[in-house]
């Protein structure tokens, strides 16, 4: 039984099909990179995984649960921008990861002090303890994204979704963020879906790389057909030893 099951998913906006016939099974703890040209439904697929939208057909289930109707605690998300709350300090942002599920969205008294101490531990681990009292706007892009990932993780989601998380960062910061993410994954064993434009990044971080593309292309009406998963690469060990083994099972066969 796979952990994340995507069965026969179609998504249409009005008359325009965005993605078609998506079938994927993902095991717990796998890191899935999603690549593809712009407008090929990568982000749509991520929104479906997040349950921010519901598919026109098909269903997505996580850990055998019935398909979700709205985003919830089982899915964590980091967007390219606007992933942290600008009106809270860095420490409060981390605490929010635990406290937002409460009736008032806050902790009180001893519980609050304990949460603040835990937040300081988390901040030390992600290297942001020296800016704990600042507002996110004063942080660099890389630090904001580290904060966003840390905040998403303290909520302990079953699946972590990353929508081009490092797209706005400079190359050096991006490499540092790769190490950061790899370390965190080693600690948590989290199932991750990451949309990216950077192929190198996709293969470096991912266990599998899903390629979204349009298998049929109508020159008169490019929007007639939706995109689907055209390749499913095994990217472990730099993509070399397992490639031949799994080639048959993951290559897309146009029906």
């Amino acid at each position, binding site marked *: 039984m796979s952990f994340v099951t995507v069965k026969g998913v179609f998504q249409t906006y009005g008359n325009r099909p965005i993605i078609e016939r998506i079938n994927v099974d993902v095991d717990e703890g796998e890191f899935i990179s999603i690549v593809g040209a712009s407008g090929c439904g990568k982000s749509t697929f991520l929104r479906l995984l997040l349950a921010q939208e519901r598919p026109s057909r098909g269903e997505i289930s996580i850990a055998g649960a019935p398909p979700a109707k709205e985003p919830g605690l089982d899915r964590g998300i980091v967007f390219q*921008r606007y*992933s942290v709350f*600008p009106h809270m300090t860095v420490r409060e942002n981390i605490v929010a990861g635990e406290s*937002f599920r409460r009736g008032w969205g806050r902790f009180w008294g001893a519980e609050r002090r304990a949460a603040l101490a835990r937040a300081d531990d988390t901040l030390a681990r992600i290297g942001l303890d020296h800016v704990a009292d600042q507002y996110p706007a004063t942080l660099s892009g890389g630090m904001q994204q580290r904060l966003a990932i840390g905040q*998403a993780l303290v909520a302990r989601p079953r699946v972590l979704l990353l929508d081009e998380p490092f797209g706005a960062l400079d190359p050096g910061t991006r490499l540092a963020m790769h190490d950061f993410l790899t370390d965190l994954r080693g600690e948590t064993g989290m199932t991750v879906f990451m949309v990216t434009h950077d192929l190198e990044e996709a293969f470096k971080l991912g266990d599998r790389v899903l390629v979204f593309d349009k298998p049929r292309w109508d020159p008169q009406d490019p929007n007639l057909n939706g995109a689907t998963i055209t390749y499913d690469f095994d990217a472990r060990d730099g993509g070399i030893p397992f490639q031949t083994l799994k080639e048959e099972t993951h290559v897309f066969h146009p029906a």
Partner: protein
Amino acid sequence: MRFINIIPTRPLAVFLAILPFALVFIAYSIGSEIRLTENPSDKLLPAPSTIWDTAVRLVSEGDRRTGRILFWHDTWASLKRLALGIGISASVGLLFGLLIGLLPLMRSFLAQFVAVLSMIPPLALLPILFIVFGLGELSKVVLIVIGTLPFLIRDLSQRVIEVPKELLVKAQTLGASSWVIAVRVALPQIMPRLIQAVRLSLGPAWLFLIAAEAIASDLGLGYRIFLVRRYLAMDVILTYVIWITIIAFLMDWALRRASAKFFPWAEEGL
């Protein structure tokens, strides 16, 4: 050097800021001087010294009949009405702004209704308010509320809609309920906007206050101005106008400072 690149130094900037005030004062003094040399009992442009004497008399001497210093009673009465009206408007506006901005159900239910309501000229309703609520305090406060509330609701609901979708989704993935999203994400995000909207509403609020006081009242800054108009007491009128301007400016300044103090994270946006 291009004009867009010429930045005044600090002393020059201060000088430039004071200059228009000084120019207006000088122009008034000259005009007043010319009229007064022609006719020493001219009432239209009293000399600045006369205005100053009147102002001192107004703020320090009591009414001959009651002994009350009317200037301060007028100020207090007007400020009470203004604060009450703006306070009610801001609270109700905040509540409905959040409801309309956050809940698609409420948006469908009320957004168009508020848009239509905001087109009603509030002063046209003033006679109705006097008939329904009488000539007391209530009708004046209600006029301020009616005059400023639709704008506040529309502005604040728009601000809530402009809160990035990503933040709302993120809050949901952290397990937040609609209530928690409202009080911990949307509310703090629009508080600086509320202060800004209130600052913009202060102008209309004064307008409606003075209009209501001018028509039916027995105390208040607007009432006094319209009362002494009968005696062509320009020195009193000008004192009151300057006083109202100072109060309005101080309110605006205080709100701006409050916004900077309580919402430092929003500084860049304001």
